């Protein structure tokens, strides 16, 4: 689905959302949920210091407005921008700042939902989609930590061997279904059904704790994370 199709599907009554460069920003009235702030990164662009600071500013403005309206963060990106300039300027701080702003928004009473409708990878994925309260995706979205050819180079394994291993476990290979099984993506939307009600359903989910590790346990993609996390909390409390 194109960005225009998605926006039209989510907000049939129209919206006031602009795209400047690769950055999405604006708001819309959702038939059920009312005002929704919309922002994001599009066109498969990398996320660097210049993009992250603009997105973070927008999130902080929304939090300061005090309206507690939901924030929908649309994601079709590459990875973080891999450049000398970005690292020289401290890219890690900019990406962490954006992530903190989104986490702050959720903690301050805004529902934050990311919709992954294209690619995303590595630091860009962590700083955007994975920093929201709920991450959903459209069929065809393609999250990755690293693509398989690069992974083959680093692990010094032939790509065919890597592909065979990827059949046996969702834990390392890129792809939407693997990210669902490991609990990172809450649900894949049905792109043949109207999107508006699917967003409404997500917004009705009670705001709560980080349950991604438990989703990973239930779905079989991460069998240890939740149990170990809870065990550490219990051990620390008991000693």
């Amino acid at each position, binding site marked *: 689905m194109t960005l225009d199709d998605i926006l039209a599907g989510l907000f049939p009554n129209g919206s006031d959302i602009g795209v400047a460069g690769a950055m999405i920003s604006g708001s819309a009235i959702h038939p059920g949920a009312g005002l929704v702030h919309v922002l994001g990164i599009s066109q498969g662009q990398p996320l660097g*210091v*210049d993009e992250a*600071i603009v997105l973070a500013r927008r999130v*902080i403005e929304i939090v*300061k407005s005090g309206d507690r309206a939901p924030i929908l963060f649309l994601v079709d990106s590459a990875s973080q921008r*891999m*450049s*000398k300039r970005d*690292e*020289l*300027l*401290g890219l*890690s*701080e*900019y*990406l*962490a700042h954006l*992530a*903190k*702003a989104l*986490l*702050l928004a959720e*903690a301050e009473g805004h529902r934050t939902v990311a919709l992954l409708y294209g690619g995303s990878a*590595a*630091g860009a*994925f*962590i700083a955007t989609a*994975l*920093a929201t309260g709920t991450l959903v995706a459209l069929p065809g979205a393609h999250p990755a*930590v*690293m693509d398989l050819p*690069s992974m083959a*180079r*680093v*692990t010094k*394994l032939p790509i065919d061997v890597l592909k065979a*291993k990827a059949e046996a*476990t969702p*834990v*390392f*290979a890129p792809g939407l279904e*693997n990210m669902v099984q*490991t609990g*990172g993506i809450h649900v894949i939307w049905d792109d043949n059904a109207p999107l508006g009600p699917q967003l409404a359903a997500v917004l009705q989910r009670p705001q709560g704790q*980080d349950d*991604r*590790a438990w989703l*990973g346990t239930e779905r079989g*993609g*991460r069998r*240890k*994370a*939740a149990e*170990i*996390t*809870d065990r*550490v*909390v219990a051990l*620390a409390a008991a*000693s």
Partner: protein
Amino acid sequence: MTAATANTDSLSWYEASARQRIDALVDAGSFAEFIGPEQREMSPHLAIFDLPEQFDDGIVIGRGRLDGSPVLVAAQEGRFMGGAFGEVHGAKLTGLLRAARTLRQDALILFDTGGVRLQEANAGELAIAEIMRAILEARRAGVNVIGVIGGRAGCYGGGSLIAGTCSRLIVSEQGRISVSGPEVIETNKGIEEFDSRDRALVWRTMGGKHRYLIGGADTFVDDETLAFRQAAIDALKVTRGCGVAVLEAEQSRLERRLQRFGAARDAVDIWRALGISGPTDIPALPTDAFLAAANNRENADDAR
């Protein structure tokens, strides 16, 4: 109760193991480990790749005392799988940070990591997201989460994003902080963009001195365990939380950095713009002289 005592032998932080760093950091004999090596909670995924496992999956977590006060501590072992985040490794740290919030106890993360462990990349990536959320929630509950960076593997990839969510960062010159590693930039953009074998370029672009000068770290210390211990004690004396005001201040700080230094081609240009009289001498300066030269550095005290 007797006064808290440090282990008196100072070691190189860079050379020390994760366990040695914890022993040197906290009060002597005070550390108690959670899910220690005898529990054999190893990665369930490395066997798929016929790779050796480590009993603690490359991270040691537990509680000790720092100058008499209880602190939760995690230390990554950079020599095992590059200190990378896998499912078990990450879950141990997530649990520790959730405990920090529940128990209102400060936490120290001794980073030594190349980022996500590729053999369990999806689990590692999600662990990083869970850790960042746990840190933010702990900080909002009034808990300090201090990052300490000076190990062999540096603090790369997702590890650098976690560091960016900490309330304060302590670095040594060896403490490199960067999202993309030198080899990754070179592989993706070419050797003209970044020559990963140019060690001087790596240190001045990603190393502890540069990060301290631009406000990417709060305390700069010698590569000695006792110096790190004293810096950690000092760092826990102030609590800042993480609300709108802090993030607004960070927004201004990071915007200012882009305005001041966004056109710089090299770290030396930034150091010159900071008003340092001999910017090319910075890499060679010993700590005292460096700290004196860094007098006009950018500062992140209330903006992290």
